């Protein structure tokens, strides 16, 4: 399966070109930064990508050849955009990128037999939920814009939701693999609606409860939406019952509506989304500036490093949280509609490759895990891009691999590692004569 890795290597060439062009553009634009540090960064980045490629060649020779170059593309875009905002932030991001790749390699190293995850599914789920609670613990919890998203222990700060999403997906994939049959068979029609059997649905309700819990205690509409959507996606794929999805959505909407009217923070987020012009200089400032920045971009954008992030002559933000929440708006502003479409296309291609892996996988757990990981990743991208384009309320979810933030980068590289592990096995089994039949037999 050398050809897969060769394709990966070839696919890294455009990434290299993109990154070099990007850094060169910022470099040419910012005459004040006449150090050659930017080009050294670019060189490091490419060397690291090459090392990862060689590692994959050895460890997962059969894994999907396009995922890593696609992710590298996003990371490159992110690094260039962040470098353009602030070179100090870009240095952090580059360090996290390296840390992410170390965890990526570790995951691949330690979880070659990722089925072991099934055995610890409850441990993983509880650990994930506890992580979510951490931001509300006194001493280590941090509140950002009214939401409890961060944990800070000494110098180490991270956003647990990024890791919890993987834990939840692992749990759901495992649980649904085991219970999908009974969920389908035991379902009965009541008043023309197919309802799942109650006793097997308990743990599912727990997930719903967890989402609602997030809404109330973490006050994070974005993560809540992301988790629950991933849950519904998995439930649908596992059972094939669209009615379950409808019921789930109804439950979420009712719950969200209830809490939106009782939890002020959530309520406010929705109000701003619906009526940003009511308070354009305070509450509505971020979403309006996000949209104004996009309006300024047009078809082709203003060019790298040409957009305004702060009001000239001051430190006042013209595009608040440009390196995290609204980085997509900055991309539209500077790279235009075409550049933004390119970014969305990369996410779509990642989703396509992820689902392809799920299709190729031979056993239920692998299929569901690949589906869940891909779904949660895609929906995360949707939640934040949808937030800054006013499709849905704006929340503090990161744009995977592009936004500034260590937790996001590291967690998403672990997610990528899991996808590649599944892929490597699926494609290896497909390659080996009789391998497929063997795997199918084992699954049965």
């Amino acid at each position: 399966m050398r050809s897969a890795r060769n394709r990966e290597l070839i696919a890294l060439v455009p990434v290299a070109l993109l990154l070099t062009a990007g850094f060169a553009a910022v470099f040419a634009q910012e005459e004040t930064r006449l150090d050659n540090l930017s080009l050294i960064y670019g060189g490091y980045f490419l060397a690291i990508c090459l090392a990862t490629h060689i590692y994959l060649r050895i460890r997962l020779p059969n894994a999907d050849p396009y995922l890593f170059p696609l992710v590298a593309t996003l990371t490159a875009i992110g690094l260039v955009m962040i470098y353009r905002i602030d070179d100090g932030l870009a240095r952090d991001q580059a360090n996290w990128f390296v840390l992410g790749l170390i965890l990526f390699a570790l995951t691949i190293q330690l979880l070659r037999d990722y089925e072991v995850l099934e055995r610890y599914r409850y441990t993983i789920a509880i650990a994930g939920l506890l992580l979510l609670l951490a931001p509300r613990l006194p001493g280590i919890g941090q509140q950002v814009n009214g939401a409890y998203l961060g944990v800070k222990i000494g110098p180490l700060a991270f956003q647990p939701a990024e890791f919890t999403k993987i834990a939840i997906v692992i749990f759901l994939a495992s649980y649904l693999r085991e219970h999908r049959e009974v969920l389908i068979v035991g379902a009965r029609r009541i008043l023309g609606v197919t309802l799942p059997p109650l006793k097997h649905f308990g743990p599912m309700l727990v997930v719903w409860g967890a989402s609602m819990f997030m809404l109330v205690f973490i006050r994070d509409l974005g993560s809540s939406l992301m988790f629950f959507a991933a849950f519904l996606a998995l439930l649908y794929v596992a059972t094939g019952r669209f009615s379950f999805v409808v019921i789930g959505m109804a439950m979420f909407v009712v719950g969200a509506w209830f809490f939106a009217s009782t939890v002020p923070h959530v309520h406010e987020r929705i109000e701003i989304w619906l009526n940003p012009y009511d308070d354009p200089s305070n509450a509505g400032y971020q979403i309006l500036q996000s949209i104004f920045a996009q309006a300024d971009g047009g078809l082709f954008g203003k060019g790298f490093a040409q957009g305004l992030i702060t009001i000239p002559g001051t430190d006042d933000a013209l595009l608040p949280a440009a390196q995290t929440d609204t980085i997509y708006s900055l991309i539209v502003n500077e790279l235009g509609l075409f550049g933004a479409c390119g970014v969305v296309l990369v996410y779509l291609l990642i989703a396509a490759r992820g689902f392809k892996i799920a299709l190729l996988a031979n056993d239920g757990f692998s299929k569901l895990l690949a589906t869940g990981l891909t779904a949660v990743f895609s929906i995360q991208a949707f939640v934040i891009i949808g937030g800054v384009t006013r499709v849905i309320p704006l929340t503090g979810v990161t744009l995977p691999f592009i936004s500034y933030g260590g937790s996001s980068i590291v967690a998403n590289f672990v997610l990528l590692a899991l996808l590649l592990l599944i892929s490597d096995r699926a494609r290896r089994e497909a390659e080996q004569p009789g391998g497929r039949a063997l795997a199918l037999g084992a699954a049965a």
Partner: protein
Amino acid sequence: MNRQIVKLFAFIVVLFGVLVGFTSYWSVFDAKALKEEQANKRPLLEQQQIRRGRVLAADGTVIAKSVAKGKGDARRFVRRYPEGALYGHPIGYSFVREGDTEFEQFHNDELVGNESEFSSILDELTGTTQEGNDIVTNIDANAQRVAMAGLEAAGFGAVVALVPSTGEVKVMASNKSFDPNRVPFELTRLNRNEIETPLLNRATQGLYPPGSTFKVVTAAAGLESGTITPETTIDAPGTIEVEGNPLSNDFNEDFIGASLDTALTNSVNTWFAQLGQKVGQDELFETMEKFGFNSTPPIDLPDDEVYNSGVTVEGQTLTRRDPIDLGRMSIGQERLLATPLQMAMVAAAVANGGKLMKPQIWNRVIDPDGRVSDRLDPDEYSEPVSEQTAADLTTAMEGVVSEGTGTNAAIPGVAVAGKTGTAETPGNDACGGGVEQNQAWFIGFAPAEDPQIAIAASVECTEQFGNDVAAPIFREVAEAILEGE
């Protein structure tokens, strides 16, 4: 499960499609509306970062320029007007917060370097920094100073000087003016000043009764329609009845058997009132409108800052079908109002053998590399009168200056053609309610045999006559321009 996975992917495709849809909406389809949003400061901030081009007088005097403030990302440009109030009109001002007016507004695209749609896309692709073009105007700096000094000595009013053959605006002065440099600090105060109205460009927005200067238009209509020839005589007694009310000449003087020359030289009211009635409303309006009345003068200033001249009732311009006291309109009364620009256009058309050229302030656009990227191409607006009629009018107007009511406009050694006007405006609140408040006018051109310059000078709220206050300004400005040739 595979079928569901494919469907799930299809759903994700739809979701991402929605993202692309919304992004397109904000960045392209709704972009224009968003840029005009009150809460959106980006267009203003970005405009600040472009070095707006300079505005220069014909001799290179810098009227407006942009200076950089701050460094790096904080660098922004602020407009400076080295000549201050002298060019407050017609150049106007341009500031981020206060917006832009007059010439600065009309020529904004050239000044900020917004070229064609195509080249701006090219610039975006190549990342070229937008830079403004300089514009050289036709304004004669020396004559502008002379005009302003003359007005400041005489009172509020305006002077417009046009090159008859090209329409080039050599002078456009309005008193009371304002210092554009002060606009960011005292715009509100300037706006509130309803007595001096410094922000009003009296040359294009000052609507005044044209008085006897309008007799040139009436005479033109008479000659052009064939109602009279220069030899035709009309009996003009000291007082006649027009529309049921008596109308008199100055000192009630009789002019029996007077021809056009005599009538214009002595500005005989009863002669022109009868002529107007003979010509008829249709023909008189026809000629007026060819001179530019009843429509926005085709000058390079924003439409809302250039007013129509004509018979105006409560902001509505009356047409040739509306009931009008034709006799009084023929001598520049009866709710007839004209801007100094309009009366300068009348003089210029006569001076140019009957052809009216579009008045233009700009002369050429100079791109950031110093090349002339565009140059004024003189354009004919209309042909109000024939060459013969223009010649006959010139002869009559020469009489006004050489032996008639406008002798103060005479320039030694140069034949001057002109017409005075003194309209009584007793009810004018702006004049402080005095009884003897006149609108004094002089329109004319020189040299009569080969006109180089046509000028209208108008002074409001004066106790004096056109020949006393307006004609001397005409003479000084004409001399300044002719000496500069």
